């Protein structure tokens, strides 16, 4: 018999196939995040996947390349805990409070490990995810012209419009090994629903090889909501139910932002010992105190 061209095409956009599995947070992180991976935890003030970040610290991942437009305190925590060797970002701070002291300590003093940085603007980062989600190798934007960023960031190039001759900026697609986001809800089939400020999370998930969505709750039916973003189950690798998984960030419709936590982070993060005590107590338990 003739062997016809294989009907069972291997999906090339995302690893694996089928629909999202609903598992525990610990299982999902163990299965998805490996040492050396490029890992994205996205969220623009709203719906930041803090619990997942803590689980990565707890599981002791190393040498990660972290990417995020707005690395804030959960990235300060990952960096301070020594999980990252590189950060790709556009704005690193504690919003409304000040600097990220663990990030500064890593950049300025290589503590606890050196941190390489790759720095973009928001427009550039957003478009890198868009290109990644679109299966394109690069994106075009009006950006960076006249700034000092291209002198220090290798992933900014110039491109010429083939129709007008105009020169614009190009940035390469960002395709993380794993993207992790937090959403309000999923249904039992693993379809994900989020609303409110949705940032760049859809693009981050679609750009990634594998993905995890932590949710406030798993429900029978996703009641439609204005300004919702729905990610079908087959575009997500794992879903984990983690109530308050965004805290101290917020989940619209569930809980408010814990602004006191953000303010109190400043003092904890200024001091290496205070930070280590925090990791030990809050995230990791005794085993990390001995590392």
């Amino acid at each position: 018999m003739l062997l016809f061209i294989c009907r069972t095409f291997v999906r090339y956009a995302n690893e694996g196939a089928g629909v999202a599995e609903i598992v525990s947070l610990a299982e999902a992180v163990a299965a998805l995040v490996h040492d050396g991976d490029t890992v994205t935890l996205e969220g623009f003030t709203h719906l930041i996947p803090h619990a997942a970040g803590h689980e990565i610290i707890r599981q002791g991942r190393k040498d990660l390349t972290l990417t995020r437009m707005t690395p804030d305190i959960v990235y300060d925590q990952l960096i301070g805990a020594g999980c990252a060797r590189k950060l790709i970002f556009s704005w690193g701070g504690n919003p409304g409070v000040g600097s990220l002291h663990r990030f500064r300590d890593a950049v300025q003093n290589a503590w606890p490990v050196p941190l390489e940085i790759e720095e973009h603007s928001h427009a550039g980062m957003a478009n890198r995810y868009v290109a990644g989600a679109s299966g394109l190798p690069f994106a075009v934007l009006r950006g960076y012209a006249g700034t000092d960023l291209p002198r220090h960031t290798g992933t900014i190039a110039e491109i010429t419009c083939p129709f007008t001759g105009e020169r614009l900026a190009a940035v390469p697609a960002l395709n993380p090994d794993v993207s992790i986001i937090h959403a309000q809800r999923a249904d039992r089939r693993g379809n994900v629903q989020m609303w409110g400020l949705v940032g760049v999370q859809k693009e981050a998930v679609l750009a990634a090889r594998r993905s995890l969505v932590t949710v406030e709750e798993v429900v029978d039916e996703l009641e439609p909501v204005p300004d919702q973003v729905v990610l079908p189950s087959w575009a997500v690798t794992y879903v984990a139910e983690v109530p308050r998984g965004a805290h101290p960030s917020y989940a619209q419709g569930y809980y408010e932002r814990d602004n006191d936590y953000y303010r109190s982070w400043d003092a904890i993060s200024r001091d290496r010992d205070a930070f280590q005590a925090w990791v030990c107590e809050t995230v990791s338990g005794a085993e990390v105190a001995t590392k």
Partner: protein
Amino acid sequence: MSATTTQTSTTEYTSDEMMSIAAARALTGDTRCFVGIGLPSTAANVARRTHAPDLVLIYESGTLGSKPDRLPASIGDGILAETADAVISVPEVFNYWLQPGRIDVGFLGAAQIDRFGNINTTVIGDDYANPKVRLPGAGGAPEIAGSCGEVFVVVRQSKRSFVEQVDFVTSVGHGQGKGDRERLGLRGAGPTLVITDLGILRPDPDTHELVLSQVHPGVDVDQVRAATGWELRVSSELSTTEPPTEKELAVLRALKEAS
């Protein structure tokens, strides 16, 4: 629609019904399927209501996971949005979902299809500027043909539609043969099944020429040859399609009636 009817033990069915049901059978499991209106939509909806309830239907008008309970009258029928898992913009359909290769099967029709599965829906005649017949044009087809995991073509077979070489390549099948898709940077496998009212053709793995691999009940090979504009090769393992089951016919007819 079709003049030919065939009788099985208990049921009569038309050759168009056989084509729709053969196309439906090709869709299995949790396949993500990019559905054009007309024959593809009929086939996909029959599949979802028979053996493939988890089939994910994607319409270029902007729906992911539509579950219509009747055949949509157009590609933008309201029922597609009302029953979808997600409703998105048209640019998003093409950029975030089709282009990166997230869709397993693209279902296309054709005005002309050639020996290598290339498709024409643009113009009939050699002169683009002065066509014999002006057809609707490309629509989503060129990128569906390029980026879907594989492509199923559903088309009635005749010397007019099955031609040695299409007058205009709207959507690339296998180009001029094996290796052409890779050279063009097309990432999907291209047409793997061509389902007609007479039988099923598949590309030969060595040459990627379309070869007759299956005839529908009551159709003989000469009849298919007579409806093909090139010297049709026939698989050494030619098989005959299972006739439609009563359930398949009932579902198909109920869907059509509800429209």
